[in-house]
């Protein structure tokens, strides 16, 4: 190994649900950095630790089942191993394969593939306690000699075996010499196709050959960069020959799995002393009988959802109030420090209001992430997907789309990012495109303000339900119903494709680790702040400037400050634009003030609350709870007919319907751009949602006006 290269590059890899993340945490502790893989938005976890003066740089790769990648997540892991340069990563010095001891056979499939890559490897035998519970004894020495690499028994969450694992990594692990051999004709074809002179490259070529050979023609969207890079003329010639040969013989795809499992079964039978698989499943069966039972499972699922929403929307209250107070205090603090003028306005109305508008949602998002993390770590999320799959398949999606959509109720950004686990490109796109239709928490302030201002407080259905709550609920339902229709249409037209397949492991239940869940929560929270914050900030400043310039002279000296700000707004670029677009928003029942409030809320929906505050001749320190703004809205009248109130029930409904369906969120569009690597999809989303919102708001206004006037 190179003396100059100070740190040893280590890849941590394994099947999903093997306790890999807890092992990673145990190995590196707090020394973690989160980045992205180049060209992909999948988080890259890199951690560092020291062993006897040697620095180990450990990458936690996404969990995968096979080196023949089936989803963008898996592709990343494969790229890191096969084409280190294309993935802009250092070549890996050591690979640590994490194995779930209680699920040895299937876990070894990936391991045998990895051991053949010519990279020094170590096997970490994790979750031994579960295997022991099931009265399974694994002969570790025997396993190590069968695999040809060191095997270390670890227990990530109990910090066991971590020192041994570190020292095994640092003391130059060995390259496995064992490999699964295929039939003579395949081995001959691989030998002929391999042109590389040194071992590691030859090993990679072997892997690429197998990938190309086994993976059928419907390569879906995964671009096989590594294959292209390695394809020489000999390679492709041999590959074609081999493909033809096996296509004639029948099952080309089963060659690799059959050979590997045959090899694995042989190893396992000599290593595992007593495998009582029946027993290992007892606990899971008991829980699953309740959790995924068609009836009780659905009940638990609904209870979980209720709890989640309760947590997101009510438990976050105090924290949100605190943040809002903090930013108000900050604003008034700055106001008292800096004299009236452009700088003060920029800092208070632009920067502080902009940052505050994003940070206020952090409590909800953290709570959501915490709950989702808990459910994921416990093993419930896979069950939720299992329960939802039937419904989702009706619109051409699968149960895997459920988690992204659930997250979108807090915020579409994490929802869109969570869609990465979906294998098929079209299904992933369809999920991402409908995610912004879920009523996110940014819509809540709008709903609350407009409901309070326009919908009369009345108890209906025998006094059980308040009319306002019903309106609020129907806005959420509207988003869901529209999303279902849009998904169905998309899957029938632009994103044609069969209903995706659903092949999912239901992992065994385990005690969630609070430290892992919290760490993930904070990291995702920071991601949100960075992603959303920077953009909203930029746009808020822009909107601020449009509302601030050109400066108009106060015509009458005695006007109050709020009245002056009203006049200023009317004459600003933003105000002029609002008046110009009035004919467009008139059919929706809106006056120009609502029009510009909506225009100004392009960067983020919740901005509309603050903007309305300014427009309706108030200060801009209004929030949805303030009685002042609510009453001002109630009293607002049309400019051309002062006897007619603006905020009638139809107008309120039309505003809410518009906000339920519109794409007024720059951050969502930016994340879509990032995830799809193209401007096409965010543009499409913006157009379809805005058109939909406009039409729906118009229909709502017309229908509601007619119904109420009768």
């Amino acid at each position, binding site marked *: 190994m190179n003396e100059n290269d100070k740190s040893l590059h280590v890849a941590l890899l394994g099947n999903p649900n093997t306790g890999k993340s807890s092992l990673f945490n145990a190995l590196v502790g707090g020394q973690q950095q989160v980045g992205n893989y180049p060209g992909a938005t999948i988080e890259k976890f890199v951690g560092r630790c020291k062993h006897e003066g040697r620095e180990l740089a450990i990458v936690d790769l996404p969990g995968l089942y096979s080196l023949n990648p089936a989803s963008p997540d898996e592709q990343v892991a494969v790229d890191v191993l096969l084409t280190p340069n294309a993935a802009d990563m250092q070549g890996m010095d050591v690979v640590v394969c994490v194995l779930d001891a209680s699920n040895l056979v299937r876990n070894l499939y990936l391991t045998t593939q990895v051991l053949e890559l010519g990279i020094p490897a170590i096997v970490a035998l994790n979750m031994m306690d579960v295997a022991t519970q099931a009265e399974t004894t694994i002969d570790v020495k025997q396993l190590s000699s069968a695999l040809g690499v060191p095997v270390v028994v670890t227990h990530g969450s109990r910090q066991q075996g971590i020192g041994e694992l570190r020292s095994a990594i640092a003391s130059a692990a060995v390259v496995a010499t064992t490999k699964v051999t295929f039939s003579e004709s395949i081995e001959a074809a691989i030998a002929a196709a391999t042109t590389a002179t040194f071992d590691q490259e030859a090993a990679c070529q072997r892997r690429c050959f197998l990938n190309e050979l086994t993976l059928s023609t419907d390569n879906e969207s995964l671009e096989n960069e590594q294959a292209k890079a390695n394809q020489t003329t000999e390679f492709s010639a041999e590959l074609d020959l081999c493909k033809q040969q096996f296509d004639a013989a029948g099952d080309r795809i089963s060659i690799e799995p059959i050979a590997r499992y045959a090899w694995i079964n042989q190893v396992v039978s000599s290593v595992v002393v007593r495998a009582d*698989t029946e027993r290992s499943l007892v606990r899971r069966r008991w829980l699953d009988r309740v959790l*995924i039972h068609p009836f009780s499972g659905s009940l638990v699922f609904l209870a979980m959802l209720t709890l989640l929403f309760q947590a997101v929307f009510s438990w976050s209250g105090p924290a949100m109030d605190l943040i809002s107070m903090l930013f108000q205090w900050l604003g008034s603090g700055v106001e008292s420090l800096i004299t009236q003028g452009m700088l003060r306005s920029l800092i208070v109305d632009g920067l502080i209001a902009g940052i505050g508008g994003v940070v206020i949602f952090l409590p909800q998002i953290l709570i959501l992430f915490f709950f989702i993390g808990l459910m994921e770590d416990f093993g419930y999320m896979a069950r939720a997907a299992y329960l939802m799959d039937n419904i989702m398949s009706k619109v051409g999606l699968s149960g895997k789309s459920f988690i992204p959509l659930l997250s979108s109720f807090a915020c579409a950004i994490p929802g869109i990012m969570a869609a990465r686990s979906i294998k098929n490109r079209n299904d992933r796109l369809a999920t991402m495109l409908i995610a912004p239709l879920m009523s996110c928490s940014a819509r809540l302030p709008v709903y609350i303000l407009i409901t309070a201002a326009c919908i009369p407080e009345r108890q209906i259905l025998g006094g059980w339900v308040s009319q306002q709550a019903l309106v609020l609920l129907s806005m959420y339902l509207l988003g869901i119903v529209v999303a279902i229709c849009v998904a169905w249409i998309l899957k029938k037209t632009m994103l044609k494709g069969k209903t995706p397949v659903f092949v999912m492991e239901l992992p065994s239940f385990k005690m969630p680790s609070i430290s892992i869940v919290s760490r993930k929560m904070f990291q995702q929270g920071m991601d949100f702040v960075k992603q959303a914050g920077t953009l909203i900030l930029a746009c808020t400043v822009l909107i601020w400037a449009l509302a601030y310039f050109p400066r108009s002279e106060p015509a009458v000296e005695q006007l109050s400050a709020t009245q002056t700000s009203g006049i200023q707004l009317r004459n600003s670029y933003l105000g002029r634009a609002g008046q110009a677009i009035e004919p467009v928003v008139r059919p929706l029942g809106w006056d120009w003030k609502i029009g510009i409030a909506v225009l100004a809320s392009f960067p983020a929906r919740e901005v509309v609350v603050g903007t309305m505050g300014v427009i309706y001749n108030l200060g801009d320190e209004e929030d949805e709870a303030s009685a002042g703004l609510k009453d001002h809205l109630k009293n607002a009248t049309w400019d051309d007919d002062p006897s007619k109130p603006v905020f009638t029930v139809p107008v309120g409904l039309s505003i809410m319907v518009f906000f339920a369906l519109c794409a007024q969120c720059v951050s969502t569009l930016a994340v879509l751009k990032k995830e799809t690597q193209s401007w096409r999809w965010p543009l499409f989303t913006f157009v379809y949602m805005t058109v939909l919102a406009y039409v729906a708001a118009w229909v709502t206004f017309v229908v509601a006006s007619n119904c109420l006037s009768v």
Partner: protein
Amino acid sequence: MKVSPMPPLYLSDLRRRTAANVVAVHGADGVSLRLLEMGLVPGTQVTRVGSGPMGDPLEFELLGFSLSLRKTEARRVEVQVQEVREKDASQS
């Protein structure tokens, strides 16, 4: 293993608490490959455990883990029931 004279049986047809051995996975796309990679290779013993809210997806156990498949995917896997295992499973 003797070839049964009956029409082929698929995982999707398997009754609850019944174990069977995989005979073959049909189809030549990524889905079939993933089924094979998940351990559904010829000879593997699979037990049908339960099913989702409206009869789909189905839940199976194999090699000590739990796998859920839709009926359409389960229909790709041809199986053969083992008479002895069926008794075992019904006892537990």
